[in-house]
């Protein structure tokens, strides 16, 4: 044990002496590793930022809401089989609403696109949502002013509507929309409320470019072709989401008359599915990104290898002497490995500092909350040490295999 320790200490001493004796060379070699670590760190931060932005966006869907639909989310399903499934219909929503004990609220939802007009102003291709009075409860969307549809209006299919904030701003830039009559497609609706701004989903589809109408009226005025709907089910609590899902599944299987061995002919979607899908994509993005930036670290490693080879041939005679007076091949190997690891770890530490600094700067500029985890620091540290070991190994092995006789004769 003491043997290894004194060998190790000697290795450290030699390494520091060698690095000090060749300052410029060591600095340049270290620089390669610094650049590598900085780029990997920054890429890590960017990926984490992307992740966070996604999670923030996905939160709009609500973790406690189940979406009973014909089509499952995510990929990998047999399109033809699913296309041939029976549609989800309004009576399914009613069955669930009646029987589900773990559901806080249930809303049937269906949608299409129409132009919406008020006087001379037109907003084209607005998403028209048909739903019931529970929708605000189910979706968590809130009303800015006015009110949402009452149960009486919703069930009775009255010609009333609530506007998404974007539609409201576009149609009523200077007026109070409450009580005004707009034309949705060819039909007149009276505005009873306006939603708060909800933003967009994954930066693509605005959730504010919408008009909400009673679903019973929707069926009469906008329903075209097949009449499939979705049912949104809000679980009683976040902890009961999975139980609620099983309960809804059971109710629906019974309602659809499925035999025990038959597969579900409907899908119960969750936020989780989107998260899973994104994570799959995220892993690919992260993998490719880290691979590309990892290349710069690889180049840094080659720099270390190069300089270690120079160092070994410069010190051939010294290696010969050390072996002559009793250094084993392992001791020589260790000595050069330590030198490579020191150069690369020093580079790693500087790289981490610069990387963390620029990540913080990046977060100031972009507004992303950047979090530099101890784990990622440890990872960068371990990575740079690993680079030193991997790229220092061959030169060190070469040194350790030198014959002492040849090495002592070397000029």
């Amino acid at each position: 044990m003491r043997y290894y320790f004194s060998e190790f200490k000697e290795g450290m001493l030699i390494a520091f002496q060698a690095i000090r004796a060749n300052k410029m060379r060591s600095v340049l070699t270290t620089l390669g590793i610094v650049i590598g670590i900085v780029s990997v760190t920054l890429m890590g931060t960017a990926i984490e930022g992307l992740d966070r932005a996604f999670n923030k966006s996905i939160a709009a869907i609500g973790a406690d809401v189940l979406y009973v639909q014909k089509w499952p989310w995510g990929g990998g399903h047999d399109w033809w089989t699913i296309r041939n499934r029976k549609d989800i219909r309004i009576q399914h929503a009613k069955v669930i609403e009646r029987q589900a004990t773990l559901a806080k609220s249930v809303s049937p939802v269906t949608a299409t696109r129409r132009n919406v007009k008020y006087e001379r102003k037109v907003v084209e291709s607005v998403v028209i949502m048909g739903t019931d009075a529970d929708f605000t409860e189910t979706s968590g969307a809130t009303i800015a002013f006015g009110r949402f549809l009452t149960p009486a209006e919703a069930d009775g299919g009255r010609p009333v509507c609530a506007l998404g904030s974007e539609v409201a701003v576009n149609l009523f830039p200077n007026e109070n929309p409450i009580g005004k009559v707009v034309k949705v497609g060819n039909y007149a609706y009276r505005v009873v409320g306006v939603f708060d701004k909800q933003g967009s989903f994954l930066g693509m589809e605005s959730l504010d470019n919408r008009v909400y109408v009673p679903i019973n009226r929707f069926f009469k005025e906008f329903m075209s072709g097949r009449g499939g709907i979705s049912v949104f089910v809000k679980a009683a609590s976040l902890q009961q989401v999975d139980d609620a899902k099983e309960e809804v599944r059971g109710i629906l299987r019974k309602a659809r008359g499925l035999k025990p061995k038959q597969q579900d002919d409907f899908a119960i979607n969750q936020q989780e599915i989107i998260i899973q899908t994104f994570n799959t994509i995220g892993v690919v993005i992260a993998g490719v990104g880290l691979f590309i930036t990892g290349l710069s670290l690889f180049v840094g490693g080659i720099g270390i290898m190069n300089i270690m080879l120079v160092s070994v041939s410069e010190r051939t005679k010294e290696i010969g002497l050390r072996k002559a007076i009793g250094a084993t091949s392992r001791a020589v190997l260790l000595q050069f490995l330590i030198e490579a690891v020191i150069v690369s770890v020093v580079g790693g530490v500087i790289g981490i500092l610069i990387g963390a600094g620029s990540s913080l700067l990046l977060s100031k500029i972009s507004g992303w909350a950047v979090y530099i985890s101890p784990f990622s620091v440890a990872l960068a540290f371990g990575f740079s040490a690993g680079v030193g070991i991997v790229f220092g190994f061959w030169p060190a092995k070469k040194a350790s295999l030198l014959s002492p006789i040849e090495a002592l004769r070397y000029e």
Partner: protein
Amino acid sequence: MSTMIKLDSISKTYHMGEEDVHALQGLHLELQRNQYVAIMGPSGSGKSTLMNIIGCLDTPTSGLYELNGINVSEMNDNQLAKIRNKEIGFVFQTFNLLARSDVLHNVELPLIYGGVASAERKRLARESIERVGLTDRAHHKPNELSGGQRQRVAIARALVTHPSILLADEPTGNLDSKTGEEIMGLFDILHREGNTIILVTHEEDIAAHAHRIVRIRDGKVERDEPNKKRKVVTIPSTVMA
């Protein structure tokens, strides 16, 4: 006197491309404890090969080499490294000191590879430095020392493990004749103190210090005789501490 080195039918063949070079061809040699032997021979005689084998830097192609009763002719690299560390003290023509380390660290070096604890290492190194008279130079770097002083550091390094043999390869080759004589005087003292010394040289003047001269030619011992005209250096007390 006990036998320290026993070389029996030692052969060494190098492959140089297509040709085989027979550096040693069935060489016999025995050395006793506390002998002072000079090995001489023209270049190409096999003198260096013999030195490498005696110093455990190399193993013979065939034949038996016993050092202190241990057969070292078939040891592997690691075992040889340990033997070199414990049993052999090398002194080279070009000193081979570590330029970036001070005298103390240079002398300590074999003990580091021998796994000796730090405090004990320092004590042994200082002791060894004192024997060659460089106590006041312990913290100097090699480039702050004269040629003679550097060679003394090398000798201190060779002595620090109390090896069985002191193996000196042209130890005065890089020194002027006056300094060379001082170094030879140091060897004389070390011999009187009980060390076994092997001196490899081609200079008659230097070999003249030894008690026995072995002449090598064509890979064999050509002549092996006691040195009757032994040269003794009287060293002024100011040089030796």
